[in-house]
């Protein structure tokens, strides 16, 4: 008799826990870690096979808080002549000719109340791959790190960077 009671209690308890976790999972919204992009740009080719440095396209990463997406002119610099017949390149040229900016889907986004500067991190010798992973090996860019506070802090801890809240919290 007591067994059944205990059983019921235990069942109820664990059931509740499971529900709670599930609920949290649903509530904690996470964006798609590898969204499809308007143009399927293969980092594998450019950063991988061609060994182009990140800064060739992401020109502002050393100058500004945001790395900046490459202006289409840079793409066209090569693709006026190279591989012009491929579908994706056609898309690109169409964008360029129609003078439409390309609106890429964000892979990494920070909350509004956080100040983050690519410049500072790059100048401090943090390699792009430390946060963005081996992009050169990704056909479609995938988010390898969730940008949660603990993740930032642990690195700041290790590298002895500032842990004053005001460094990152606006």
């Amino acid at each position, binding site marked *: 008799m007591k067994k059944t009671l205990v059983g019921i209690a235990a069942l109820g308890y664990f059931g509740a826990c499971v529900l709670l976790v599930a609920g949290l999972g649903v509530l904690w919204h996470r*964006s798609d870690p590898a969204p499809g992009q308007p143009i399927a740009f293969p980092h594998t080719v450019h950063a991988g096979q061609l060994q182009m440095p990140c800064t060739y396209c992401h*020109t*502002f990463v050393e*100058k*500004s*808080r*945001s*790395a*900046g*997406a*490459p*202006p*289409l*002119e*840079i*793409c066209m610099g090569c693709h006026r002549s190279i591989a012009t017949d491929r579908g994706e390149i056609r898309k690109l040229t169409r964008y*360029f000719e129609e*003078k439409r*900016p*390309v*609106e*890429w*889907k*964000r892979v990494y*986004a*920070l*909350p*509004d*109340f*956080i*100040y*983050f*500067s690519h*410049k*500072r991190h790059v*100048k401090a010798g943090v390699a792009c791959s430390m946060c963005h992973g081996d992009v050169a090996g990704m056909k479609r860019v995938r988010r390898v790190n969730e940008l949660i506070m603990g993740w930032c802090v642990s690195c700041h801890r290790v590298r002895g960077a500032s842990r*004053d*809240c*005001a460094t990152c*919290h*606006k």
Partner: protein
Amino acid sequence: MKRRDFLWLLGVISGSTVMSACGSPNRSAKFTSYLLPPEEGVVPGEAGYHPSTCTECPAGCGVLARVREGQPVKLEGIPGHPVNDGGLCIRGQSSLYRLYHPERLRGPMARDGVKLRPISWEDAFSRVAGSLKASREKGRKDLFLSGRTTGSLSRLADATCAKLGIERLSEYEVYSHAAEKEANGLLFGERDLPHYRIEEADFLLTVGADLLETYVTPVAYTRKISSARARGDFLWYHVEPHMSLTGADADRRFAIGPGRERHLLSFLLREVLDRKTPKTPLPGELLAALPRTTAKGVSGETGIPQESLKEIADRLAAAKRPLVIAGGVGTANTGGLETASSAALLQWVTGAIPERVDFARSENYRAVGTLRDMEDLSARMGRGEAGVVFLFRTNPVFSLPPRLAFKENLKKALLTVGMGDFLDETVRGADLILPLSHSLESWGDVEPRRGIVSLLQPVLPPLHDTLSDGDALLGLLGKASGKRLAGGYRDLLAAAWEKRLGEGGRRRLFEKGYVEETLPKKAVSLDGKRAASAFRGAGPAEAAGKPVLVLAPSLRTFDGRSRILPILSEIPDPLTTITYGPWISVSEETATRSLLRDRDEVTVTSADWKAVLPVKVQPGLAGGTFVVHRDALPAPPVGTDPRTGGPLDTIEGVAIARTGKRIEIPILSGSFSQQGRGLIPDPVHLDEERRHERWTLYPEHEHKEYRWAMAVDLDRCNGCAACVAACHVENNVPVAGSADHLKGREMSWLRIEPFYEKGEVAFLPMLCQQCHYAPCESVCPVFAAHHNPEGLNVQVYARCVGTRYCSNNCPYKVRRFNWRQHPWPEPTDRMRNPDAPARDVGVMEKCTFCLQRIRAAKDKAKDEGRKVRDGEFTTACAQSCPTGAIVFGNLLDKESRVYRLAHSERAYRVFETLGTEPSVHYLRGRKP
């Protein structure tokens, strides 16, 4: 060649604003590749600064627009600008709210029947053209009425009117300064306002002219006065019927019976003439015309005690470089012309002209007409002479007295074209509404003062379907005259600048945002005969002892034009700390006599007019004098001065009666007395030991590189509240609204606390004191409030759970709690500074010395491998302060200004006995 690189320049400026929009890290989930790489110097995610000019009032201060993600998010005065030299007033700071105002006109509209229907610009113009033709056939006269315009726009308006056979009426301004202009016209043949070189005077007597608030070019005069004060030998007396910030800031203030200024000034004139003969003696007939006065009589008339009269006279006579300025409410009465003329004569005999009274650099008010002109206009329209009437950036329906029946007569016109940015009282009634762009969306220039060209340039593409002032006129011209101009107003300007300023000048205009031409001094001569006429047939003697209502200009809304900006109702009026709603100021004497308390409802009645207002008891006001701000009264019952044609802003013989009801208005101050707590000690206690040493059992925490601190010089602060507005805009401080204010839930991070003592008022700007031993921090259970290595009390909004213990434990009560989610109605959300965080409901917020600015400065310094230099950057409040009362810097740097000030003899800190060790040091000496 020249032309091309000019256009290239334009490209840079307009282009860059668009380009700096790319890669906005936080704003959107999008991440954009633009077509062309942004030009050098403009980097995504970083701010750009673009010079332009403030158009919130006629003063024309130069502003730098701070642009992020292609949106201007902050305006700051241009350092070195001949008008405001870096300072910017409360209205200028707030004017971004005009640009982003949700109620702005979004496109041209035409009236069919009663309601307005949107139409295209093309149709709008052709409708105007059509009506112009029609009115010509009918033999009607087409009229163009505008507010004060200067520079190229003024010329374009003239040209347009000339070409289309439209009569351009003299411009309409509520503050037309008619009396001064009339007087200067009669005396010197210069019907304009001179520019006063106050900085060169050693004694200043101002009569009615509220230099610090609205008088012609307040920021300029504020700066001049503080620079004169900095010299040390400067003394300033102010005479006024009401109580104004200007009076409060003057070294001595005398309350005078409204409309009695002329007696005072003619007395002073006599005195000065008796004591020392001027270099060039006054012509006989003029001397004869001057009224004879006795100290006793004048004292009786003005209510100023004889010894005070004598003191003023002595000072004036003794001064080496005296300057007398009469204006504002001081000349807006029946004696106005005489007052102004006496003042001008005093300037003449004391040799202030042309040294300190500069007619060469006059304030460009020639084209501005008077109230009488408006009477004529209204009459003409009433007679049905008017064809098409253009109302260009002016709101007479609001500000004209009802007796003119302007609104009614306007209806008799064939077509009324309202050109403005809001559905204000005038535009609302128009048949055709042409929306004009904000100056930050338009090309143009203004000439606020002779010889100063100040640039207007677009820092963002128009938010709505609007045209710039110039392009709107050109559009009209093109449509009506049949031949359209190639290019737009921009090309016209280009040519004009090319012609006027030449190559170098034009480049400077773009670099600095202004060009100052060198003008020769202008010597004027006194015409005795005409001058004498100014004194003959003076207005009737004022009714003695009757209560008088003074319509005062408002610091917050000028003549009422800025009352549409929500933030200006949010920021309290410095003297009364009232935020929302109109009120009538009553002297303490009257209040005690007729048992009036704050918020009591009263009815104010004059011969032909009545108003119901809540009472605010105003210390320092002369008995029997009531004050209402101009913006509080639509269609006020002002008369016309028969001699100057100017308005009579003092209404004689009003009656005031208590209704027994109360009107709840938000008076933010809980007590206008210091309650003996020495927030503003006088004299400042100077015992070093108490101030700089502290005895504690705990080990001290010290700061490594920086310790940010602030010094506020209360002797310089005049309570103008520009800093408050700047703080609001810089830090996205929300507009709480009157409902919350009535509950006592204002959100402002920085406030001006007025404290009265025997009619004298002192202002204390109160913001987070960034205490070294902060009581707020230790009580926060989650470390949301904590001390950072640079001496800031950081508030981590994302961590705050909202126990509000920190606010309880803050002796200065400078923390603000988000009682609800504050809305940012589109498009106001675009003016939010992306570098400052957005605060959520249920979170405590406060000043952090503009953390984002500190961060930016340190970032820059780090790139250049150095420490942040003193004065390299400053907080928003300090930046905007026209008197430079606020100084911000690093306390660890012994060379820094803030260090020097913090250790000056005049320095003290509020509630020092609490041992909180604030980082905000106040400086306070004694008034001379």
